[in-house]
């Protein structure tokens, strides 16, 4: 039988000499879940953009049911039965679910028909959503369902999902897998893009591994070992488990960060933090896990002095923080690795050396009276570039031209060289490749070994478990449970992240 969707020798180059896909072959059989596995930057998104008509390949072509096709636009792909759920949803926030599903279809906007369709498809595939709800009122998981419904409403025969579980709790992910199985049971195909091996194993029939823009091979999951797939993905042997990273020194007793009864509003004025209590000791890593959007960003901003707390107190190394003032937080000994590193953390167009001096330029030896000593600033930048092994053409290269891992190293070099007492790290390895993840984790652990108290906010449970001494779960602006790493259990944490308090009680 001809593959439902296939790529034949697809090559895609970008200006600047980046080859995102090189001679990639892919066969998606009817009725299978086909995983595309690869690290960030391996070319998965580029390939899916070629398959959905967003990019036109420089060489090679796409086939549907064995027939070559040339998509001129995403609309062509949709009409050919290819549906795509992007990592960042393409929904109109202020429209209702039914309106979003009806959008982009030919003919008048049939709200009622669309609402009925949403209900029918929802029942048939196990995707319950209220058709009259507005998108912004929905959780991220529900928004994803809308995206899938949108594709199904156009009778997509192949559905491509780009990192669909990144925004889901383990339970929601399970539910999604069930939906995908129901779809394949009807003969539809699914392309499941991921960089997580366990997930791929849980849902896919076959897997194609991408590395550096090339397809490294396609395997039946039943035949392939995880170790083999990991080696294909990374190009070398890797340690697979979420083993705890070894520590040189145990945490101390001194409290370096105390958050007490903190409440704060989110951007839309909704209560985002509802009474947060936390303490971080010197040399300790406190990991806070939770699904994105449960108050992590607001908590980080309150501590960093970038958001007003409507109640409660924050103390950094014994200094109480008053009204929001990032400068005061820094002075008290806070270092921050913000989630949005390239905009909240760094000035992207400025040279690496300036970004490294963002804190230090105010004080001697870089400052002399009102002046900045450019030569010293550059010497210091060179030293930090060496020390933190930042791969950059030079100290004057604009920071945005560096790779994600090196951008993060610039940020860590800057913050750690200011000798903080507390380091607030929000999703510090998100979007980085395996090598950079290791480096960043090493730097965080060695800071803790040097006595820095670390507050680690992450959606990645493996990361929390490998770095943290203590683990707390944040859900809807509250800390649901706090426990020692030794007592933490992945299953229970996963349930807690989904707001399941019962699991929390059994764990503590």
């Amino acid at each position, binding site marked *: 039988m001809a593959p439902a969707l296939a790529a034949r020798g697809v090559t895609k180059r970008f200006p600047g000499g980046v080859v995102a896909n090189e001679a990639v072959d892919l066969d998606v059989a009817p009725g299978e879940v086909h995983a595309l596995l690869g690290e960030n930057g391996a070319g998965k998104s*580029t390939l899916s953009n070629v398959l959905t008509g967003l990019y036109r390949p420089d060489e090679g072509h796409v086939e549907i049911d064995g027939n070559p096709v040339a998509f001129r636009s995403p609309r062509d792909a949709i009409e050919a039965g290819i549906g795509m759920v992007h990592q960042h949803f393409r929904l109109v926030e202020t429209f209702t679910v039914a309106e979003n599903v009806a959008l982009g279809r030919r003919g008048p906007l049939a709200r009622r028909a669309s609402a009925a369709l949403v209900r029918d498809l929802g029942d048939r595939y196990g995707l319950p959503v209220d058709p009259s709800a507005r998108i912004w009122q929905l959780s991220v998981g529900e928004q994803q369902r809308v995206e899938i419904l949108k594709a199904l409403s156009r009778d997509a025969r192949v559905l491509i999902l780009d990192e669909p579980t990144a925004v889901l709790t383990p339970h929601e992910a399970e539910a999604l897998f069930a939906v995908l199985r129901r779809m394949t049971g009807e003969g539809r195909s699914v392309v499941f893009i991921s960089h997580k091996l366990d997930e791929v194993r849980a849902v896919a029939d076959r897997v194609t591994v991408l590395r550096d823009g090339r397809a490294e091979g396609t395997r039946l999951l039943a035949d392939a070992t995880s170790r083999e797939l990991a080696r294909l993905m990374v190009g070398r042997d890797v340690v697979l488990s979420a083993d705890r990273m070894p520590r040189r020194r145990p945490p101390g007793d001194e409290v370096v960060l105390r958050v007490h009864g903190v409440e704060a509003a989110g951007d839309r004025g909704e209560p985002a933090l509802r009474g947060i209590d936390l303490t971080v000791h010197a040399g300790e890593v406190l990991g806070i896990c939770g699904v994105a959007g449960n108050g992590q960003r607001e908590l980080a901003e309150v501590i960093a002095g970038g958001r007003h707390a409507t109640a409660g107190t924050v103390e950094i190394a014994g200094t109480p923080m008053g009204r929001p003032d990032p*400068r005061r937080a820094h002075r008290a000994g806070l270092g921050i690795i913000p989630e949005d590193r390239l*905009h909240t953390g760094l000035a992207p167009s400025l040279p690496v050396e300036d970004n490294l001096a963002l804190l230090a330029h105010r004080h001697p030896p870089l400052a002399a009276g009102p002046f900045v000593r450019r030569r010293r600033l550059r010497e210091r930048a060179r030293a930090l570039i060496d020390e933190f092994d930042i791969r950059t053409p030079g100290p004057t290269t604009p920071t945005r031209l560096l790779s994600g891992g090196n951008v993060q190293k610039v940020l860590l070099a800057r913050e750690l060289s200011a000798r903080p007492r507390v380091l607030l790290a929000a999703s510090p390895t998100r979007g980085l490749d395996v090598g950079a993840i290791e480096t960043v984790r090493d730097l965080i652990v060695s800071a803790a070994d040097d006595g820095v108290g670390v507050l680690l906010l992450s959606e990645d449970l493996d990361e929390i478990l490998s770095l943290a001494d203590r683990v707390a779960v944040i859900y809807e602006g509250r800390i649901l449970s706090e426990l020692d790493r030794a007592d933490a259990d992945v299953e229970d944490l996963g349930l807690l992240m989904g707001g399941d308090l019962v699991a929390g009680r059994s764990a503590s």
Partner: protein
Amino acid sequence: MIRLEPRVERPRRLSVLVPLGSVVVALVLGGVIVALDGADPIAAYERILDRGFLADGALSATLIAATPLLFTGLAAAVAFRMNVFNIGGEGQFVMGAVGASAAGLAVGDGPLAVTVAAMLLAGAAAGAAWAAIAGALRAWANTNEIITTLMLNYLAANLAEYLIFGSKSYWRQLEGTGLMFPQGRPLVARAFWPRYDLGPVEVPLGFAIGVAVAVGLAVLLRTTRFGFQVRVIADEPRAARFAGIRTRRAVFVLLALSGAVAGLGGAADVGDTRHVLDPKALSQVGYGYAGIVVAALARLNPLAVVLTAVLMGGLANAGRSLQGPDFPSGLVGTLQGLILLCVLAGEAFARYRIRRVPRVAVDPEAADPVGAGA
């Protein structure tokens, strides 16, 4: 299909070549217009060059015309550097003239050095205070400074008119014909600012001060902590704030500084040439708005503002002295407009490069192919 792609890195030489090339293109286009009008473009340009720069005394007159543009150009450049869009150079210039003329009237009988210092101080303070209103509103009430500075221009113009035409103020001539035909009280002759004879050209004191201010601003922006912070805030205000840079205060200080520079321009205008507060004339010439053009041509570089101010001043000067039946009267204004248009269009070439690509669907993320290609 032809597509513009953002340049990853911007070659240095382009930042000189592109504006120069743009001016050349503007001159060619202007020549075409002159030719269509039936005149000889070469001859027209020769006359502009002659009257603006080469003829006897032409450069001196050009420097006088360039001085106010130099100050308002610097005022715009320094604010725009941090993406603070001070459109209020006009009003700050007027307020500077109000302050400086008061100072000149008050202490004009004393030693010239004292008079000049007092006028500069009063002009800068008045301009700074005027801009600080918009600065405080922007920094602490998040008000759009484009709107507030623009509105303050009208307020300043009306205030100056009131001082001369609507009241018996300190600035108004109340003796002789002054009661019948309202006008400002002139400074005494010994309070007039000096001009320095440098052989081929006479340099007014105001222009010399303007050059010094340009150098000072270049040093400030390039070498100081404040300049460093301005660059960070310009690039990413959020990063600046989280790194503990006081962004609100920087916005306020920068707008006040910009206003002070424009106010100095008002002082120089009174001291160098007008010697009186003349609201009608000030609102006609529109130095504040012309300063934005001067700053844009200089690509916000304070030192380059000196050059572009002289260029635009020379064009204005030539236009004035060439007006007549044998010279296309709109030519100079047309040229100034063309130059700005070409320089702004030229910016696109400095920032983007042109590539021919096969027609494809355009993805919003394709603007950043390296990031989206992951």
